[in-house]
């Protein structure tokens, strides 16, 4: 009885979360423009997706932007974590408090306030992409910090001292001893930053150049517009991204559990 209820509840949750994606995935392989109407099998949507320059540019732009943002955030956030870790307790908690702001803040407020400062107050040109990159880094950098910090706290504090005693210079000790210890945190911070900026709508739409679109802003505009061809091509995009995520998650889970075994 208890077991039946447990299975029932989880199946219910999974159905709620996945049924829409699954239905859309099935319909992405038909020529139908509406869910519910039955049409034949077709790869038309996938063809449109890969042959429409506007769509391909938008996808490439989204990933390039996310990559640049994740890279900058990883460098800034890791430096911040290492520096804060070796600071006085008071300084460190002040830094941590500052970093909490973008984490707890609503994305609408973060995006709007960055837009007000850079574009309205300083009159910066949106078309330089600088406000956009800064805005997304504001969101992502503290998350990198939060992923790197536990690696530092879990590290043997005498490793660094030992390296110095054995003749390393401080910068050598930093690169050869501390860096290898925090790399797993940096990698997961990088991935968090990547998914955050791929997923973001609000910060992007308040700071982006008018002609540039990421997947999020493009999809929102497309649902308002009436271009059916583009709309159903996005079903194909959704299906492809879903498959990619499943593969990445399964792979990371496999390598992750192997690392825990060691």
């Amino acid at each position, binding site marked *: 009885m208890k077991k039946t209820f*447990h*299975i029932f*509840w*989880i199946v219910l*949750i*999974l159905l*709620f979360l*996945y049924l*829409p*994606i699954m239905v*859309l995935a099935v319909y992405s392989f038909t020529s139908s423009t*509406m*869910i*519910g109407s039955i049409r034949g099998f077709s790869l038309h949507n996938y063809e449109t997706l890969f042959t429409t320059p506007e769509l391909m540019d938008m996808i490439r732009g989204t990933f390039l932007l996310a990559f640049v943002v994740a890279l900058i955030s990883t460098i800034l*956030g890791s*430096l*911040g*974590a*290492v*520096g*804060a870790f*070796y*600071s*006085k307790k008071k*300084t460190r908690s002040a*830094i941590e408090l*500052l970093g909490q*702001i973008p*984490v*707890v*803040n*609503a*994305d*609408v407020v973060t995006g709007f*306030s*960055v837009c*007000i400062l850079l574009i309205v*107050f300083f009159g910066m040109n949106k078309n330089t992409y600088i406000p956009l990159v800064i805005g997304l880094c*504001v969101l992502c*950098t503290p*998350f990198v*910090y*939060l992923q790197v910090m536990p690696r530092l706290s879990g590290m043997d504090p005498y490793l660094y001292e030992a390296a110095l005693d054995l003749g390393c210079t*401080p910068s050598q000790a930093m690169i050869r001893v501390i860096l290898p210890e925090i790399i797993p945190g940096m990698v997961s911070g990088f991935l968090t930053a990547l998914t*955050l900026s791929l997923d973001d*709508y*609000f910060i992007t739409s*308040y700071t982006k150049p008018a002609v540039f679109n990421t*997947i*999020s802003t493009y*999809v929102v505009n497309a*649902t*308002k517009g009436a271009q059916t061809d583009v709309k159903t091509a*996005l*079903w194909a995009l*959704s299906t492809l*991204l879903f498959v990619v*995520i*499943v593969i990445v*998650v399964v792979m990371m889970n496999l390598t992750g559990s192997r690392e825990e075994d060691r």
Partner: protein
Amino acid sequence: MKLERRYLAIPYVIFLVVFVVLPLIVVTYYAFTNGEGQPTISNFVTFFTNARTIGTFLYSLFVAVVTTLVCLLLAYPAAYILAKGYFAGKGGMLLLVVMPMWINFTLRLTALKELLDMIEGNLAMYPFLNTIIGQTYDFLPFMILPIYNSLTRMDHSLLEAAEDLGAGKASVLIKVMLPLSMPGIISGVTMVFLPSMTNYVVLDMLYNSTFIMGSLIGSYFSSYDWHNGSMVAATLLLLIVLITYIAEGGSSASGERRG
């Protein structure tokens, strides 16, 4: 030697001060000035006396409370089953439940919209219902994960001890399990409550004509009304500080992420 290492934090600190703290100060400044840069409280008065803005504020509070409750009711049993129940120790199941967090939320909402379109016929007929469904669909994993984490950390022998000492199933749940999982609940609630007041894309994508707080910022942004927009942002900011302050007692909102 210690001196050198802590200087590494300088770029991070400067970045946060310039691009996190300064924008919030400028927003507050804009909220209390007019187009000519003169200090004024008219934006403040407009916000708190206009029936539309106050109505939106109250409506979005209501939406946020309902969404948070629905998420909690769905998430708590799920988190329990995954952490302590039939699926305990089966990590794959948890992964399946939280995986939607990594899929672009606008694409997920497109899928939901198409399905609701088919079921309801006309989305505009059920604006409130669709708002709650859409937000729950978007935010549910963010409620499940922190509760799951607090339940797995919980010492199982405490539950057994309570049962051995004669507590019934209901009182074990209410007097032992709920209080012990409170940090997870608080952290989940803060991660769902705020986005439900502000994430207006969920409403937009479901062809909703109702407004929440975020929509106000969006519409002021589109009409280049920086001063009234800043007033809304500043109000939200105050609310966020308040919520964080209240939540601080039991939880640490770190690592996990809302939509």
